[in-house]
């Protein structure tokens, strides 16, 4: 951990409609590598991702990010009624690329997720798994330094999940810092180097994934890990 953290949250608080959502949250994420964020529903996981991406302004605290590009993949892929290619292109608008480079990147990304032959097809006509692959192609084409993932496989079948997990691993391997919110503890165990447990808007425990999952130290982490089977909480989340 000699490199500076890719994400540095300190004392971040957020209240909405009188409810405390983030409560003096501290969180550091190193680059590269995959960090998982787990915790019960309402712990503030999704909000944390949105605060990091600048979509939500916290009421108080410090948010510091190392310079670079961010990409965000949501649980439900948000695609425009346009071709697959146009949807990937949307991610590159703010990058100011030459036309040639833009087209190359789009095709490479579509090829990587196995959708190149369908580049001209309407994205909104794709299956759920294909749509999420397309959303990853968009993120992939952006070559982000930080990838934010909000339960990216929660509505996918096992085969599609496996494809997506392969993509996540590959992007992390290429030097992207990944922050993964997931209720799928098997997925967390497979992918994440480090895991953070959020409860009631605070980071209550953090550590190497395996040791945290098998021997949690805090009451909150233990309650989440033992009291809720991954598939039941997944059902409740969706």
């Amino acid at each position, binding site marked *: 951990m000699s490199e500076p953290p890719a994400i540095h949250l300190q004392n971040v608080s957020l209240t909405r409609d009188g409810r405390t959502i983030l409560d003096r949250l501290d969180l550091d994420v190193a680059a590269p590598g995959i960090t998982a964020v787990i915790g019960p529903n309402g712990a503030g996981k999704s909000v944390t991702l949105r605060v990091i991406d600048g979509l939500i302004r916290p009421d108080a605290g410090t948010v510091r990010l190392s310079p670079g590009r961010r990409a965000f993949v949501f649980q439900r892929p948000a695609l425009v*009624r346009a071709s697959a290619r146009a949807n990937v292109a949307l991610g590159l*608008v703010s990058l100011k690329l030459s036309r040639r480079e833009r087209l190359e990147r789009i095709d490479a990304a579509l090829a990587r997720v196995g959708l190149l032959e369908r580049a001209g097809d309407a994205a909104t006509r794709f299956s759920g798994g294909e749509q999420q692959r397309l959303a990853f192609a968009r993120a992939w084409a952006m070559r982000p330094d930080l990838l934010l993932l909000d339960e990216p496989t929660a509505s996918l079948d096992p085969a599609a999940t496996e494809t997506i997990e392969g993509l996540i691993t590959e992007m992390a391997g290429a030097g992207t810092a990944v922050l993964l919110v997931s209720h799928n503890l098997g997925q967390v165990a497979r992918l994440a180097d480090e895991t953070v447990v959020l409860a009631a808007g605070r980071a209550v425990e953090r550590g190497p994934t395996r040791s945290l999952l098998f021997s949690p130290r805090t009451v909150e982490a233990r309650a989440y890990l033992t009291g809720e089977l991954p598939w039941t909480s997944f059902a409740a989340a969706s």
Partner: protein
Amino acid sequence: MSQTLQETLFRLSTLDRDVLSIAWLSLRVSLTAVGIGLLLGIPLGSLIAVARFPGRGAVVGLLNAFMGLPPVIVGLVLYLLLSRSGPLGALGLLFTPAAMVAAQALLATPLVAALTRQVIADAEAHLGEQLRSLRLSAPRRAGVLIYDARFSLFTAALAAFGRAISEIGAVLVVGGNIDGHTRTMTTAISLETQKGDLSLALALGAVLMALVLAVNAAAAILRSHAAKAYG
């Protein structure tokens, strides 16, 4: 009644060039008005859908109320504005097709804006966060949302066209129903009704209906063709 119907069919078979030029004027005035309504209403509706500002609820309510603006009120207000003694009298637009376009554009714009606001608000709920995350500028986000909602906006355009071509209150007042200049299908139908020539009025009504149906059918074909690809 059956006699009137028979006469109507006969009159339909003998409709002359005058009727064609009246139908053409109606079509041209209403399409231009809808074009202006779209150019103004879509950006306005999108802005209200996406922007957050104080009093937004009131603006939305006002916009929805304006969808039902009575044409004759629009006609009257516009008449007073365009009259030679009115503030815009120097333009000399009263009793011209341009005045009728303006009147129908005033009717179409709030309708388009209100429908656009609804459609774009739905698109924003679905796509807004993703587009902001992609760091797209606000105008570009609006553009993408409009593009995404284009099929629904098409329906808004048709609704506006239907309102424009079928209204009489506004075109009658600002157009003056001048034979050969500002006589539209609706004012012609009204005139023939007043003259007691009910079979001719009905024949003209049939032409107007055919016109509206033709425009809607053409739009439906275009739309289903495009929508087949994108859903």
